[in-house]
């Protein structure tokens, strides 16, 4: 079975999404740090944040539809009992094995793309934090229009809290994701794969020698 671990559509989505999230992180920080002009002018930060937010919302929708239609959502984004069992083993590898030169206990296949830790992180990020940050962001985009919904949630401060907590979670994920992407054979292996699609390495179940660790 020959297939791409990262189909072209997902690769494009990944990098567009990444760029937008970086923009959101920077503008979000300059909004949060309420003295303007530190990173951005306040007004321009608001504007950029707003439209980058819309872009991420659209890209998330694309991802959801794409993964739903291709079945990768049910294939890769459901935490099973084996995953929970595999978590300590994977954590042990990252904390100790990786320094000793041990082999990664997980090998990505078209059937199982993410290692257990990676899967948990992805599921929370893509199914909890990202939707939370997007929905709260959409509510923020027109406070007066969504007023009744915001009131129902408990007010603006609560909405603000949801958005910011979710944003911090995504930020934490981003740091980990960026670092673990360097844990391949060479530091740039996974990053290259994300451009090329990993064609050469995954051909069939169990035939790959690549260690897949990008979290």
């Amino acid at each position, binding site marked *: 079975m020959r297939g791409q671990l990262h189909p072209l559509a997902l690769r494009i989505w990944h990098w567009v999404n990444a760029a937008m999230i970086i923009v959101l992180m920077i503008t979000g920080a300059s909004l*949060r*740090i*309420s*003295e*303007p*002009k530190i990173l951005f*002018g*306040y*007004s321009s930060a*608001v504007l950029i944040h707003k439209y980058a937010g819309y872009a991420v919302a659209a890209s998330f929708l694309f991802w959801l539809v794409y993964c739903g239609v291709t079945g990768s959502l049910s294939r890769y984004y459901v935490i099973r009992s084996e995953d929970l069992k595999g978590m300590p083993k994977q954590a042990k590898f990252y904390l100790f094995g*990786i*320094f*000793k*030169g041990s082999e990664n206990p997980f090998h990505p296949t078209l059937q199982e793309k993410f290692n257990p830790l990676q899967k948990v992180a992805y599921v929370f990020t893509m199914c909890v934090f990202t939707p939370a940050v997007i929905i709260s962001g959409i509510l923020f985009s027109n*406070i*007066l229009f969504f*007023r009744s919904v*915001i*009131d129902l949630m*408990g*007010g*603006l*401060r*609560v909405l*603000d*809290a949801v958005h*910011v*907590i979710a944003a*911090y979670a995504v*930020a*934490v994920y981003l*740091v*980990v994701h960026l*670092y673990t992407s360097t844990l391949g054979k060479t530091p740039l292996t996974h990053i290259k794969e994300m451009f090329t699609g990993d064609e050469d390495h995954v051909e069939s179940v169990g035939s790959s020698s690549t260690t897949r660790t990008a979290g």
Partner: protein
Amino acid sequence: MGYRSRKNAVERSMEKKTVAMILLALGLVLLLPLRAGSQVKTSECLDCHEGYKGYSHGSKSCTDCHSTITSLPHPNSLPRPSCAECHQQVVYLYDQSVHNEKGMACKECHNVHFLQKDKKRCGSCHGNVSHRTLPSSAKHLDRLACIACHGKPVSTQMTVRVVTKGKGAVDPRTIDRNGDQFIDRDEWTSFQGLPRSESQGKFSVEKSYRVEGDMHLITVKPVKCEACHSAKGFFSHARLRFFGKTVTELPIDASIFIPQLPVSAIFAQTVHGRSGVKCADCHTSQKEIAQDRSESDAVCAKCHKEVEDVYNNSAHGTQGVAHCVDCHNPHRIRSYRELDAEERLAVCARCHKDYLSRHSWLPNTSLHFEYLECATCHSPSSRKSMVFYFAQRKQGQKVPLRYDELSVLVGPGADLRNMFGSGRDISVDTQIGQLFINLKKQEPSLLIDAAILVTKVYHDYSITRLEEKKCVICHSRDAHFYESMYFILPQKEGPEYIRIRGTLLSAYPLSTFINISLLGEDKISKRDIDAFLRLKGTAKIDQARALGFKWIDFFGITLIAIILIGVCIHIILRIISRIAVRR
């Protein structure tokens, strides 16, 4: 000897009595004619009162006025003759005059015995009247009779004599171009501008102002400027006597010659008018004051010295960019409180037209300008208050509610003051918010609006805040206006200002104050954390609670920092292990 002497004495006594009797009889005979005719001839009076020879008071005789003299000799003391017996109307008017009020008698102006002698005019007593407060006093004094201003003119007429000179005198139609038998301003202007050839030489214009009235009625106060300088002034029906080819007389627009004060009607309503400022308090001359602006500032400073001092030391003053009248029209002046924030902003925007683009750095620029005025930020020394009021959205506009509109919502006759509950301490966070929710159930269009208003302005707007741009000046619990907050409650008798306390910083859990909500909250600071660490027991818990949403940033940043440290350690260990493996 004895007998002879006795006889002589008796005879002498008899003789004396006889002489006395004769004299008495003579006296009686002399007096008889007077008594019989009740008339003392003027000539008889003048026999004694030689000084009055040649007196003149019409055809009157002495006793016409000195009517108590019926015979001669008359008593030394005579009652004062009454002028009113003949001059009833004049005396009636005089009684109302300022001269009468000052106790002046007729004879002080009129030499009653020699009417043509010592004729008194106004100037005889008021010789050196400077009329310092009268604008263009020389012009006014030269052209107008005293009674025009100091009396009650019964008839006034302005006549403009235009005499054309030269060989061929001008046709009247040259001036009344549209033939409507009235000379309006345009016609007059074009007539004046006629080229020499057309007007066929020079023409002279003479203006005369005829005032008829009774000199006896000199009023206590002079008339106001508007008596002449208005559309219905004394000389508003002016006539033009045109000496051209023929002599023509036409009505002419008087305002061409007598400038009408455009503000005379409004001025009384202005804060200046209400506080008794008179035209001449500022206009000491007819020369337009505004022509020299530093001069106009000096006029304002006559009363507003304190403001001038502040203003002159401000950026506006030192750079000389704007003067009092650039912002304030003294004829239409309204007090600061009479202007709403939008109108006040419009004053600044006359020059600072680009105020919106200059404030583009300000998040929600237009929203800020809905609730603030320029002086809120640019005049830190101005006194400010945050005011709340009931408003209703009508056709997209927020309109403050009146008493009658609000009482419909809360029930007629209800004491609006009770809406806030019994407590004296009214808080934004609880009472106002709760009230808002209650009322909103009854009327969805109802809202509580707020504004930050300047209650006492300080004329120094030098602070540009270009460097600051700090949201926390207002968006923090320490914002200056929180010290002065009022709820304006419309009452039957007028608005009641109820003092309230609290802050608006998303204090209310429901975002009911969404329109006026101040989203920003001060960031967590080292001070907050130090305080938290220092405190113990319940105080620590209280501090933790007080920090509220600030913990999000604390934990978020801390978590990211820990992970970054972890990553660094991981990298170092990877490098070390790789080196170790190679060896």
